[in-house]
Each structure stands twice: as C-alpha cells, then as structure tokens.
C-alpha cells in the first residue's frame, strides 16, 4: 500500500499548492484588483484611522486639520478655512474620495510620501501610528479673504500672484462649498450634501480659478496682442494704427465694431497706447489681421497658453486655436473667436509683464513638512520662460498704467500707487450677459501683486456690466490688501 500512499502524498501536495497559489493571487499578484472591489471599507478605515497632516496658509493657520474623535473612523477632517479655501484645500471624504490639495498632496498628508521616509522609520521603530506631514500653502489669508469678500455673491474667480516668485497669494472661486459637509462621518448627511452640490446649477464644486471651465478672455487678451505687435511687428506705444468705428473683416461681409460705437481717434487713427487704453477693437482687430493667427498664438504660448500646469493642482489649458484665417485672427486678437483662458492664465500674463517679461511658474504650495515639523520640501521659485523682452514689458506696463489712469480701468485706481491694468468684457453669445474681466498689477514700478478677476455674466451688474465697472473694483481690493501688508 506504500505506492498509492506516496501518490496520495503528491495529491495532498497539489491541494496545498493550490492554496498557496490562490492566497498568492489574492494577497500579492492580484491584491490591488481585489481591493478595488465594491464596498471595500478597509482602505478608508486605514486612511481615516491615522492622523492626517494639516494644510496651513502662509502664516501657519490651518485651513484643514484632523481631530481625533474615535469611532470607526478615528479622525475627523475639519476645515476652519471653510468655503473661502475650499477650492484650494479640496475635501477629504469617506464616500467621495478627495480633491485639490487633499488629493495631490495626499501621500504627504497621509504620511506615506517617499520624502517622509526617514520620519516614518522612526515611527515604525517606536511603534507609533504613521502620522501625516503638513502642507503650507502660498495663500496669504488677508489677501484671500479680501478677494473672497470683494467678489461677494457674484459668480466668478480671483487669482492673485506674486510676480517675482509665482506664488499664488489668493485663489478664490465662487460659489463655493463647505468641505466639512463632505468630510463628515455622518455618511447619510454627506450623501445629501453631495447630491445638493451636484444639483446646484451654479456648480459650486467647480474650481473656476484654475480648472473649472475656460472663459473667452475678451479684451484682456489685447495685452498679448500688444506684446506680439511690439515684439514681432516692431511697433511702439506711439505707433499709429487705424481705428475706425467698424472694421470690415476680409473674406467676409461681417464687420468688427467698437463697443463704444465711435472711432478710436480723430481721422479714424489712434496710437497703440490709446488703443489699449480705451480698448479699441478695430485697431486690435487690424493688428490681428496684420500679425496673423500664428504670431498671436506663439506670443500667447510664451505667456503660458497651451500648457497644463500643475500648481500642484491640475490646471486647465488655455488655448489659442491653430490655423486661423484673417477674420478669425482679427477676432482672436480681441479675445474672441475660440480663445479660451483660465483666470490663472490671465493672472500669469499680468505677472509676466510685471516681472520684466519673465514668467514664473505659479505655485500654490510653499513648503512640505514632516510630522516632526522638519521641512522636507521647500518649493523654490522657478522660471517657466521669458514671455517678452524687458523693453516690451516696460512698454506694456506704461500702456496698462494708462488704462487705469484715464482709460477703461479707472475703477482700479489706488491712492498713492501706480496701478497697471486691463479691462475685458467677453461676449458669451446673445442670450447671456457678458463676462466681466480685469487684470492688473501694482505698484507698476515695483510690482508686488498681479491679479486676474472674472465675474461671470456681469455679476450683479448684469447686462450693464463691463470689466471696468464690475471686475476692476474686485482687483483693486485684492491689490490694496497686498499693499497694506
């Protein structure tokens, strides 16, 4: 009977081998696909069972932090910054995952980042639960609050950048939401809040400032067109341009009128500086035709169009279409046709002009610290490239100063400070009111802040809206907040 016994031993070995194979599959080879199944709460328990690091503003005040509350999910994520910081922090939800900084810096906040390797070794050796690192934002709470308040109940976004470093001082998108309502441990309430936010036609979850949607820039794009005219067309602010009341578009029967109805100067002539100051469509339309679409697009790309930046939030790409014919180029030159921008991109244009033509990478994170508060990553300012020559930047600055001094942007004037700016009123079609834009920087001779403001569909001013009237005061308040620091 020994021979069959030996064969039986082989059968037993095969039985055990099948167990080793199945467990290897479940626990190693296919573990991640197994764990991705429906209703797996373990990962969530683990994430919520450890102390997650805080997100703080540039003065160290937490806008997101975890407090120990016990229960199945040990730690509750709270948002002292509330709606004001919601689009920067994002939310951290048991049910709906995470967004914004909570998402892109998750490994730091959760304490699992490679950069926290050494502090984690200490925790393992001492048997502590892994604790998260903290993320310090570049947002200045005073500027952020000023932007939030100035925008008020209007739909829109504000971005403020420190031109010399690219640090984002304010990032506001309204309407906003309370991240705490999505981070609650009351899962029923979370689901209700989520449903309400998604059903809201104003789309409060959308980060309008960097990635929610792209807008037609309207006349604020004339800064780019002017930059191309100086760099590629060899113009100066004093160069004479045609400025009729209406510009006949070649190859079509359509015309491009000025918003204010009349010509841009005596004898249908104007200068480049005056054309920008009063936002003359016909002069810039002609520039678009003369320069051509490709020149416009290349200049725009020098300002950062066409790239998806991570700040580290993912941003939407701002675009100028390729292969435009002359009438399209004319429209694009005044920020119409298919030119699309984010408020962040518009702020980058102003910031580059303010920074002598050098475009800095926009940054939302300043430092990353380990659980022991040691700095593990100090985000350094980084050049993205040169948008325009320094002389061009100076010319653009002087022209933008004219806009605020006695042009379409007087509402942005600040006592004792020279402000450079540009208005925009972007048509969105016949049915809806235009978007009001304003972008600016101050002080013009030693810029500390560059701002972009968009107010959707004219905000409280509705069809009467213009960038100068609706958006410029918001930009003014933000610049004032920086200058008062």
């Amino acid at each position, binding site marked *: 009977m*020994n021979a069959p*016994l030996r064969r039986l031993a082989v059968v037993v070995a095969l039985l*055990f081998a*099948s*167990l080793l194979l199945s*467990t290897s599959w*479940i626990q190693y080879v296919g573990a991640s696909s197994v764990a991705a199944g429906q*209703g797996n709460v373990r990962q969530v328990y*683990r994430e919520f069972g450890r102390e997650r690091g805080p997100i703080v503003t540039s003065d160290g005040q937490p806008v997101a932090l975890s407090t120990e509350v016990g229960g199945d999910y040990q730690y509750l994520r709270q948002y002292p910054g509330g709606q004001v910081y919601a689009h920067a922090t994002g939310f951290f939800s048991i049910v709906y995952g995470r967004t914004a900084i909570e998402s892109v810096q998750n490994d730091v906040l959760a304490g699992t980042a490679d950069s926290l390797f050494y502090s984690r070794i200490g925790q393992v050796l001492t048997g502590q639960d892994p604790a998260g690192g903290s993320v310090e934002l570049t947002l200045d709470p005073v500027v952020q609050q000023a932007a939030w308040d100035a925008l008020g109940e209007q739909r829109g976004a504000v971005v403020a950048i420190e031109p010399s470093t690219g640090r984002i001082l304010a990032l506001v998108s309204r309407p906003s939401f309370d991240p705490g309502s999505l981070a609650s441990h009351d899962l029923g309430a979370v689901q209700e809040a989520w449903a309400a936010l998604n059903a809201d036609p104003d789309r409060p979850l959308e980060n309008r400032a960097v990635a929610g949607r792209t807008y037609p820039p309207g006349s604020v794009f004339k800064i780019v067109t002017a930059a191309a005219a100086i760099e590629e067309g060899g113009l100066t602010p004093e160069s004479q341009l045609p400025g009729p009341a209406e510009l006949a578009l070649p190859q079509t029967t359509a015309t491009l009128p000025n918003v204010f109805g009349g010509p841009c100067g005596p004898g249908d002539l104007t200068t480049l500086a005056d054309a920008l100051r009063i936002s003359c469509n016909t002069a810039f339309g002609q520039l678009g035709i003369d320069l051509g679409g490709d020149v416009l697009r290349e200049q725009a790309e020098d300002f950062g169009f066409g790239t998806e930046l991570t700040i580290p939030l993912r941003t939407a790409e701002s675009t100028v279409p390729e292969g435009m014919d002359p009438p399209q180029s004319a429209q694009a030159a005044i920020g119409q046709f298919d030119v699309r921008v984010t408020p962040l991109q518009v702020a980058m244009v102003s910031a580059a002009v303010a920074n002598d033509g050098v475009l800095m990478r926009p940054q939302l994170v300043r430092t990353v610290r380990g659980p022991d508060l040691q700095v593990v990553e100090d985000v350094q300012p980084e050049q993205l490239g040169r948008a325009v020559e320094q002389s061009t930047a100076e010319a653009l600055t002087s022209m933008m100063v004219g806009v605020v001094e006695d042009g379409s942007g007087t509402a942005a004037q600040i006592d004792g400070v020279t402000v450079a700016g540009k208005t925009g009123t972007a048509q969105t079609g016949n049915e809806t009111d235009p978007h009001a834009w304003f972008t600016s920087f101050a002080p013009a001779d030693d810029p500390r802040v560059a701002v972009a403001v968009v107010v959707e569909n004219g905000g409280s001013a509705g069809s009467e809206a213009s960038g100068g009237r609706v958006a410029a005061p918001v930009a003014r308040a933000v610049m004032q907040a920086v200058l008062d620091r």
Partner: protein
Amino acid sequence: MTTVVTALAPGTRRGFELLLVVLSVGISTAAYALVGLTLGGQLPARLVAVSGGLLGLGLLLHVVVRVVAPYADPVMIPIALLINGLGLVMIHRLDLAKDPVTSLAVRQLGFTALGVVTAAVVLVVLRDHRRLRARTYTAMVAGLVLLLLPLVPGIGRTVNGATIWIDLGVTTFQPAELGKIAVVVFFAGYLVVARDTLSLVGPKVLWLRLPRARDLGPILVAWVASVGILVFERDLGTSLLFFGIFVAMLYVATERVSWIVIGLGLFAGGCVVAWRLFSHVQRRVDVWLDPFDPERIEARGGSYQVVQALYGMADGGLLGTGLGRGSPEIVPFAESDFIVAALGEELGLAGLFGIFLLYAILVQRGIRTAIGVRDGFGKLLACGLSFAVAMQVFVVAGGVTRVIPLTGLTMPFLAYGGSSLLGSWVVVALLLRISDLARRPDLPETRPPSLPADDARTQALRPA
C-alpha cells in the same frame, strides 16, 4: 505488497520534541503579547496565565508521550500546539475588536485543555492502535449515530442554515467532528479485510479493472450517506470531506485507479444533481463564480462575507498589517470559518504560507507514519486521519480563497469551536499512537504473535 520499510531515525527524539514545544509556546506567547501591546498599549494581563497554561498542556502531552508512546513522531505535538496557539491569539484579538468585548478566547483555551487532556487519555488507554480494528463495526455504528444525531428532533440545532449541531443542555456540540474519526476507523477496518476482493476480481475494460457490481456496495453506501448529509443537514463541507476520505482510503487499500474514477464520477454526478435541486448549493456556486456582483454582495446569504474576507487578505498583502492593526472583525464569523482570512490580513501572505506549511508538515508526517507502520489497518487509519486533516484544510481555506465554493468546515486547531478542537486533538493522539509503533526499533517483542503485521497477500483467504 512489497514491504520494504526504510530504517527510521534512531532514538526517540523526545528531547527535540520538548524543544519544539517550548518554541511553539514561545511563538504564541510573543504573538499574544504583540496583540496586547498593539491594541491595549500594554502587555495582556493574563499573559503569564495563558502562555503558562499552553505550556503546561504541551508539557503534559509531552510527558504522557514520553511514558506511553516514547517513539512517537516528535513534530506532531509542537505543530498542533503552535497552530492551536496562533488560533487562540487571533480569537483573542477578535474578542478585543468586538463591542462589547467577548471572551471566546477564554473558552477556546478551555476547549484546548479539554482536547489535550482527551488526547493524553486516548494515548494512555489505547496502547496499541490495532485494538481499534476489533471495533470496526462498533465504529461504524458510532459514526453513523454521530453523523445523524443532529437530525434527531429535540436535540438537533440548525445554525446558519446547517443542521450540524446537537444541544447537550450545557453546551452545543458538532458530533460530525468525532463522527469523522469513527468513520475513518470503520473504513480502515473494513477496507483492510475487503481490499483483496475489491482489487483483484472484476472485468477489465480498456485499462481499468472495474469492480464487480456487488463490490460497488460500500462506495454507493458512502455516496448515499454523503448526499444524505448534504441534503438533510445542508452541510456541504462534511459531505465533501467524508466522500473524499473514503475515495482516498479506497484507492490506497486497493491501489486501483478505477475506484477513483468511479468515486469522482459519483461525486460529480452528485454535485450536478445537488446544484440543480438545492437552492443553498446553487447560491454557494453563484457566490463562488462571481462574488463581486453588487447585488450578490448585498443579498441575504450572498457573498458579503467572502468579499470582505478577500478585501482583508488583499489589504494584508505580503507581510500583513501586523497583529491588531487590521480590521479582520469586519468579516462575519472571522473567529471560526473565516479565521484564515483574519490571519491572512494581519500576518500577510508570509504568515499564511507558514500556517499552511505547518499543516502540510503535519499531514506529511501522518502519511510518513502510514508508510512506516507495518499493519494494513494502521496504514489505512494513519492515511485516513492525515488525509482528513489535509482535506479539511483544503476545503476551508480553498473555500475562503475561492479555489472551490465555500462549504463551511472548521480549520483544524485554528478555528474557534470545542468539537473541532476535541476532534483534532484526538486525530493527533491516534497519529502519535500509530507513529510510535511505526518508528519503534524492530525488536521481536514489539510484534505480538496474536497481531501479525499485515503484509500477507493471503489475507482474503484467511478464515475470518
């Protein structure tokens, strides 16, 4: 049969066993301490009592073996003790995770004591396993009674759909755990007598020598009994276990592949019929094929338990979350049917491999004993008991890890449950007893003339 038995390791190896006993209790103690440190921040209050108790039980069995079975296999007791200890630790860990905290581990420690003492008693009382051969038909009756007991109105209890419990007033008991041993004893006694008729006569078809129709009786009886358990007690695991053991022993006894073919054929037929007729079998198969179907997860009697166990194991990964750091309590019945998943989660793939390896070594020592022992009855008994352990581990762990549909048996020594522990320790006692004889140096006086070694081909012709 050619009986060329290789010389076994000389000496009793009892010192080695003592060392391993201390080592296995040491591992369990360390694990127990770890659970206390992780979940309570301090060493468990009962650390000394629990590990001392476990060590005491191990030493008791060791001393008994030293006296009454000095040549017994030295690895079996430490392995059984270690698996039992790890099970205790996990049950204790799951106790702490519950709200309110339960004390199943304390009861399990009591069951362990009962099991070990029973094993010692078996070793003392049963000085020679060959005496069991005289009880072949007593064992058959005992086995049948134990198997059918849960069906008796008044004492039978249905728990979670399976009627496998009896109520003894003070406690409940799963008689099948002991019935399994009685049935193996019966099979061994029956087959050792019948093997020649079963193996030598019958028509030959192609390469298979088929048995005569009248010799098919026993396998049909075993099949009917298995199906009966499946149908009336709704106990898929036990029915699979019995039939598997029977076919394996039949094959070893007769050395004829035809029995395996017939056995598997009958089994497959039974499976198809059961699957078509019984909703509880269908549900298990559906859950096995696609547990992640959301509807199936939420359905009553659906795949929730399996899926949560899989998540736990996936979460544990290669090295596990560490004792006390996972969430094995999410899985219903984690301390009994799903203790494999709990250990997989917290000890990881590495830990589970270790545990499977312990079982594999235990089974392998059992089969080695079967090869080493000289009487046919002992061979079949050791083989049946070892294969029962292997089969039970495979059926349970295979069910949890989706190799086969989930059937509901307990992991020997590991899972919570008194009947299971008692049965498992008796199995080890019997294997120790047989191995004592198998490993004993070949001295004439150890082979009593009244019980000749069963290596005679003429047995079938011997008057009964």
